């Protein structure tokens, strides 16, 4: 036994020595590649929701232009904090910054650049139902406030004629972690349902009247999938990629709309029509008008300082943002994000080009 251990140790020692030798011989080449390949040009931090599309953009952009961008998907809150402290070149958030947060930013005024759109869908597990459930804002609010307790409640049955809803308790599943997904969902209910506004309100985390909390889209979806009688909300992209059952929601024009890329972009286009020319793009598009609009949709934003202190970096940032809104938008749909409406992309680019590169605050 002891001999065996000794033999193993010796083998290990030999292996280590070899490893060491290899390292020392290759280290000189490694350090030279780092120097010649160029270090990271821009750093950003923030929302996790757009991370898949952003990382595709950053890698495509690096291939096209050689500019390297490092992005940490630490959450919108972290992105706002880091941008305010000026530890990153840009931030990213699923919810617009509040006036109070804007006032605390150390680098002066901040621009909100909408990049792509996302949406929340209502997913459910009701045994025996094949056609998509139809829901209205007040029905959703009543379910998530615990006022509708059973699936065969008349308020649900009247929206779904011909569907045999079971006499089963409803289990609400919501996000337990602070999240832009929750912000969009509660923003929608706050806008559309006065009772929700007074009793719950909107935010990245709210005080839920009923239900269970689960962490992340995957937590909510997993819980709903496993528990008969449950209902929850997840991101559109996540629901599409996992083929979850999704409810059709009645929009402001009275149409029941299934969430889709087109319906989300349509909601943005309808809202954009009514925007004033000097908008700061801190706008909500929930409960948008228009027959084809999906009502639980939102922008996600990249946050940048109006006055860039480093002219070289500022130029790189402006170039990237222009590229993202021109070429980047084309790849959004492949990853289940809704692109900005074309006219809006033009006005946003005009906004990007107002960024001041002179280096003065």
């Amino acid at each position, binding site marked *: 036994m002891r001999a065996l251990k000794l033999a193993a140790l010796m083998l290990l020692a030999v292996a280590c020595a070899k490893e060491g030798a290899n390292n020392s011989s290759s280290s000189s080449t490694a350090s030279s590649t780092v120097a010649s390949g160029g270090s990271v040009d821009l750093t950003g931090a923030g929302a996790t929701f757009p991370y898949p599309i952003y990382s595709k953009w950053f890698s495509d952009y690096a291939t096209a232009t050689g500019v390297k961008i490092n992005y940490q998907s630490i959450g919108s809150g972290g992105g706002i904090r880091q941008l305010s402290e000026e530890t990153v070149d840009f931030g990213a958030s699923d919810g617009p910054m509040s006036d109070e947060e804007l006032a605390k930013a150390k680098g002066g005024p901040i621009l909100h650049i909408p990049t792509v759109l996302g949406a929340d869908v209502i997913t459910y597990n009701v045994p025996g139902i094949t056609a998509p459930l139809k829901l209205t804002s007040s029905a959703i609010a009543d379910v998530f406030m615990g006022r509708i307790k059973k699936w065969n409640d008349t308020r649900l049955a009247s929206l779904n004629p011909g569907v045999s809803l079971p006499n089963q308790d409803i289990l609400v599943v919501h996000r337990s972690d602070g999240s832009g997904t929750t912000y969009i969902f509660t923003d929608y209910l706050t806008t559309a349902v006065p009772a929700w506004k007074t009793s719950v309100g909107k935010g990245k*985390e709210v005080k839920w009247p009923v239900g*269970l909390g*689960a962490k992340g889209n995957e937590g909510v979806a997993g819980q709903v999938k496993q528990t008969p009688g449950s209902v929850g909300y997840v991101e559109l992209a996540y629901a599409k990629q996992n083929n979850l059952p999704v409810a059709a929601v009645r929009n402001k024009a009275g149409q029941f709309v299934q969430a889709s890329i087109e319906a989300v972009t349509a909601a943005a286009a309808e809202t954009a029509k009514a925007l004033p020319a000097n908008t700061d793009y801190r706008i909500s598009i929930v409960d948008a008008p228009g027959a084809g609009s999906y009502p639980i949709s939102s922008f996600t934003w990249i946050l940048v300082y109006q006055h860039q202190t480093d002219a070289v970096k500022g130029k790189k940032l402006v170039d990237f943002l222009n590229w993202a809104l021109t070429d980047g938008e084309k790849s959004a749909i492949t990853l289940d994000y809704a692109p900005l409406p074309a006219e809006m992309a033009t006005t946003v680019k005009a906004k990007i080009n107002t960024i001041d590169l002179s280096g003065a605050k």
Partner: protein
Amino acid sequence: MTSLPVNWLEKEKDRRRLNVGASAFSDKVYEALTAACALVVPGLVIAIAVAVFAAAWPAFAKLGLSIVTTSDWDVAGGHFGAAPAIFGTLVSSTVALIIATPLAIGVAIFLSEFSPSWLRQPVGFLVDLLAAIPSVVYGLWGIFVLIPLLREHVMPFLRDTLHLGATPFFRGPAYGPSMLAAGVILAIMALPYISSVSREVLMAVPRSQREAALALGATRWEMIRDAVIPYARSGIIGGIMLGLGRALGETMAVTMVIGNRPEISASLLAPGYTMASLIANEFSEATNDLHLSALMAVGAILFIITLIVNAVARWLVWSVSRRRAQ
């Protein structure tokens, strides 16, 4: 030319190889190095404590003890009452110990006293392996295996078949994610700590102790109960406290199975919340200063509770060993 012995060269080689008597300087260096190691760790603990309490201070100053005593956690409304999370941490850890302790001590007694030697190594290894599984894996297992099992079979059995639903502790609907699910997951996670410490302690009980009991006519079980376990008691308590420490601080697996509902309920079937889950859930998206500070305050309270638990453990071990000495 003959002053040097023939094997002089060999002796010098030996001396150099053993590195004996090089200089007193190396002793000093060793002393300084080990002292630095010994001081860095307590320094780190103090630095963490200072940082956490400093960050928590604005919340304590503004909200006072209401963080501990109230149970309304409403970020938008500016209410930060962490009582349900404190309650949940204590209850889930207690449930975990109630399940894990007898099981772990049973494993330890079997392995140290009864097990044939060919079985001891593999079983002991597998139990210890439980400690090496990442907690997110426990959480996934909890969601996909444990929770359906609890919801479909265990919870209805406890509540209806055993009529425990008549007590407040097993009342209400069985959703699955619950204090009970968290307790079971934590029990499995704490078990290897308790059992491996207990096993080592039991194996360290002197042979003479066992032989004396057998010589007095004790059966094997009486020998274990009266001679072995009392001798090992302080060590076993130490192991239990180590397991408790693990249960109090566990975050990921608990967050995935507890249901994250900030309410105090007597029923183990109801969802709950823990301090560690609360911090993990909300920290990354907390932008408002008071919210951040309140989360830090929850961290500080968890820190204090862990300190108290460790102090109680020390005291228990000390009082048990003192009683035996008398």
